[in-house]
């Protein structure tokens, strides 16, 4: 379970998160939406400790992410994150991209790490690209590679940070299909996205963030048809 309590975060005196609280239970798919600059991406980066926080707490399975004694490298094995800009390793083949962390972080023997990597690449539909470098893959394929790379660590939680925003429209579908597959497999996930159709069909819960706060949350059917807050209604009018 991910518990976020009253989290504050500033960048150079600009307050990006202003007291965010939310819970994500095991097996739940939460989609976070909101206007640009509302703090969605920052929240994800704080959840796996890539960004420090100024106040509040984030706990993952009762381990405080920003606690003094927390071994972040160990904690991050539990939480995969996929970024908007893929951030694949350009000097490694697809197979090496995916097997690197299992090999050097989980200390799996090379053969075993590669077998697991191959399985993940097959899962995201890249079985025929094992020996290709990212530079030879399309944006959608690179993003699926990034997803496979995170999955190879067998995380309990997955964070997706606007992973379709940098893609050409015709490539969005293949990446969303991968997310749907993970959803069916019961992966616990927090997904920041602007894809409202995906949010509506795949989320257990929608969280709407605005100006660094959680403005409203609820199941998609309710959220999209009967939003309570005026700000939510205004945002939904603009994006749907």
């Amino acid at each position, binding site marked *: 379970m991910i518990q976020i309590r009253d989290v504050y975060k500033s960048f150079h005196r600009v307050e990006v998160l202003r007291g965010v609280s939310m819970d994500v239970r095991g097996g739940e798919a939460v989609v976070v939406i909101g206007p640009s600059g509302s703090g969605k991406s920052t929240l994800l980066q704080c959840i796996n400790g890539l960004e420090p926080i100024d106040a509040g707490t984030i706990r993952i399975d009762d381990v405080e992410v920003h606690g003094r004694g927390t071994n972040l490298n160990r904690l991050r094995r539990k939480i995969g994150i996929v*970024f908007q800009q893929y951030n694949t390793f350009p000097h490694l083949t697809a197979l090496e991209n995916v097997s690197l962390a299992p090999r050097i972080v989980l200390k799996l023997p090379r053969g075993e790490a590669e077998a697991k990597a191959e399985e993940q690449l097959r899962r995201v539909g890249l079985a025929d690209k094992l020996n290709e470098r990212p530079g030879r893959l399309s944006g959608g394929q690179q993003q699926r590679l990034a997803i496979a790379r995170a999955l190879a660590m067998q995380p309990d939680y997955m964070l997706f940070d606007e992973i379709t925003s940098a893609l050409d429209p015709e490539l969005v579908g293949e990446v969303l299909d991968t997310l749907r597959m993970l959803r069916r497999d019961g992966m616990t996930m927090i997904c920041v996205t602007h894809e409202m159709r995906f949010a509506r069909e795949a989320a257990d819960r929608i969280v709407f963030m605005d100006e660094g706060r959680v403005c409203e949350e609820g199941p998609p059917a309710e959220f999209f048809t009967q939003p309570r807050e005026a700000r939510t209604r205004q945002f939904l009018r603009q994006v749907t």
Partner: protein
Amino acid sequence: METSSVFTSLSLQDLWFLVEGASRTLNLTFWSCIFGTLLGIAVGTARATWPAAVSAIFGVYVDVVRSVPLLIQFILINAALAVVGHPQSPVTVGILVLSLYMAAFVSEVVRGGIAAVPLLTRRAARSLGLSWFQDMRYIVLPLGTRAVLPAWIGLVIGLVKDTSLIAVIGYIELLRAGQIIITRTQEPMLVLSGVGLFYFLICFPVSRYSMRLEAKLAL
């Protein structure tokens, strides 16, 4: 009575003298390149990753070494070692000075190489649970090396030629060997062409190999 000239013509022995000079040049280059590159990597990494205050201290070293002519550094360090009671052989002083000189330049190249690796790529590595050291070893080193390989090769080629300045503390390497032969034979054009050819034969393979390596490492 016939007077014999103080000048004598070129002989095969002169060629061997040049070959020996070239081997000394190679020796100086080899060790200075290894020590200079290792020290440069350490200083460059420290400057790129440690707090600004530490970076500034190393910055003074880099600025001084890069700004003062190498010739002066040879003379000063050679003299300084003698003054403090630890005089060293010219070749030791030469390798020491050239290594420090090379390291200053390499450190800047390394700093550039680390900066060339996108922060987001490194973030992705850390998000997978890689430690700082593993990120440096498996992501930054291979990507940064690709970015700075041409610049580093340029430094190595420069270093080969900079070794000639060691003559100022009395060490005979390739160029100094050539000058000695010129003094005796009065054949500057021929000897200097030969010396130039030796430098070319040392540098050209390095340059060609680096081009092949670059092509091989291209992403």
